[in-house]
């Protein structure tokens, strides 16, 4: 699914403030897996996600998705495979547009946006159905601007928007960092459900070691730009929270 070969990213190369964010990382992520990435700040996990997303480009190394090389492809061309949920709930939605309009755009992620009215009754009902499954009571607020909702609500909707159109990969960069514990659980459970029922590959960055233990079937620990631990589902199940704390100590 995602194949990463000898990926290196150096910011400000050759200058005094040179940062080696990622150093010769190679990874193979299987289709349908739920990979949880942990590591302290500056360990390179967000850099990896942004390289996959295409918002930055590597210094060296290669990235493949479904055997297509897209190392240097711009972000908007990769979006047919990748959905992204950002840390800031504001990044994933357009605040002045209605919920319905946000969903319409998300449903066209991999296709062109044509000059025809796309929001019809059929579409409205479909969105209503998906949103009511969240149980947040948002299904009757479809015409409301996104900006009028809370961070948790926006993040949950962003996640739903991410799978409105066919997608292979869901990237989540600390999606729950700005949320209260209850909203955070809703988001992660939803991600887990999406992973299981739709078979979408999920890569989740988190700082919550508890969540890292509870969710996912593969665990990666990043330290100063490299992967220092890579546990599969079995190894992960045998892990205790105290082991994780030790790694960070």
């Amino acid at each position, binding site marked *: 699914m995602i194949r990463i070969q000898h990926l290196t990213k150096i910011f400000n190369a050759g200058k005094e403030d040179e940062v080696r964010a990622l150093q010769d990382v190679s990874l193979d992520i299987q289709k349908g897996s739920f990979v949880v990435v942990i590591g302290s700040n500056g360990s390179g996990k967000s850099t990896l996600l942004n390289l996959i*997303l295409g*918002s930055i480009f590597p210094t060296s190394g290669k990235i493949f998705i479904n055997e297509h090389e897209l190392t240097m492809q711009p*972000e*908007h*061309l990769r*979006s*047919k495979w*990748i*959905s*992204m949920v*950002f840390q800031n709930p*504001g*990044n*994933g*939605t*357009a*605040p*002045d*547009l*209605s919920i319905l*309009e*946000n969903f*319409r*755009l*998300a449903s*066209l*992620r*991999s*296709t062109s*946006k*044509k*000059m*025809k*009215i*796309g*929001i019809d009754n059929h579409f409205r009902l479909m969105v209503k159905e998906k949103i009511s499954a969240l149980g947040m009571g948002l299904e009757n607020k479809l015409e409301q*601007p996104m900006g009028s909702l809370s961070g948790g609500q926006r993040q949950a909707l962003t996640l739903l928007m991410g799978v409105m159109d066919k997608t292979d990969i869901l990237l989540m960069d600390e999606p729950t960092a700005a949320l209260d514990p209850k909203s955070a659980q809703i988001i992660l459970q939803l991600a887990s459900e999406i992973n299981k029922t739709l078979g979408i590959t999920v890569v989740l960055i988190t700082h919550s070691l508890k969540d890292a233990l509870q969710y996912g079937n593969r665990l990666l620990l990043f330290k100063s730009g490299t992967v220092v631990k890579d546990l599969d589902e079995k190894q992960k199940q045998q892990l205790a929270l105290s082991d994780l704390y030790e790694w960070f100590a």
Partner: protein
Amino acid sequence: MSQFYLTALQLALCLGPMAMGIFISMKVFNIPDITTDGSYTLGATVTAVLISAHFPLWMVLPISMLCGAMAGTCTGFIHTKLKIDALLSGILIMTALYSVNLMIMGRSNIPLINTASVFEQFHFFKNEQLNQLSTAILMVSLLLCFIIYLLNTDFGIAMRATGNNPVMTKALGINNDRIKIMGLAMANALTALSGFLVAQYQGFADINMGIGIVITGLGSVLIADTLKKWFNIKKISTQILLVVLGCFVFQSVLAFTLSIGIDPNMLKMVTAIFVLIIVALPRISGGWVKK
């Protein structure tokens, strides 16, 4: 007295497309585009030259709009591809257009006397002024329908999202640069359409007719913005209607100023002060409410 306001209405309708254009660049895309001064004159000069050469109006209209679109494309290209500040990109193209406009006309002024005019195509009434007015209303209504339709299409939603949250649109497969260039092209095509209308309405094109015209459009959009906040309007369709209304309010204030006998030379000053008041008023009153 009412003559002043009828003229104001007529002029407001002629300048309506430009105000819609500024709404698209400033409010939809969040880009301060001041190519307007140049592309408005461009629309007028192209119109004057082609009409004088007896081109049929159905050809003059799209050609003048196309020229405006080209000017907008240049600004958009400089802004997005060369990463130059939008304001400066607009100023550069506006400045260059001054020479282009002089070149097109070959002199600084072309009068349109005894030539074809879009305002003489329909004869709904006996009164000439009413005919002009109804022609303008017809054109602006058609344009409004088109723009409202456009902004509600999938492409229109993509346009609005790009100005609202470019991080999101990139992740949703939208080429932000391309859609911005298209938006600026559209905005300046609309501005050129105003040039087309005004040149025929006032019966001449002049190299200086565009100076400060951007403030007229800006004022209309700001009036619309204030109304939008007052009445808590969220629908994009209503907002674009308010822009045309704002244009009329703006022209009425200018007409009122002239009607009470203020020196016409002071008109630009009055315009500037009026816009300042529109911008400052909601901020000052907002501050009071907060306290």
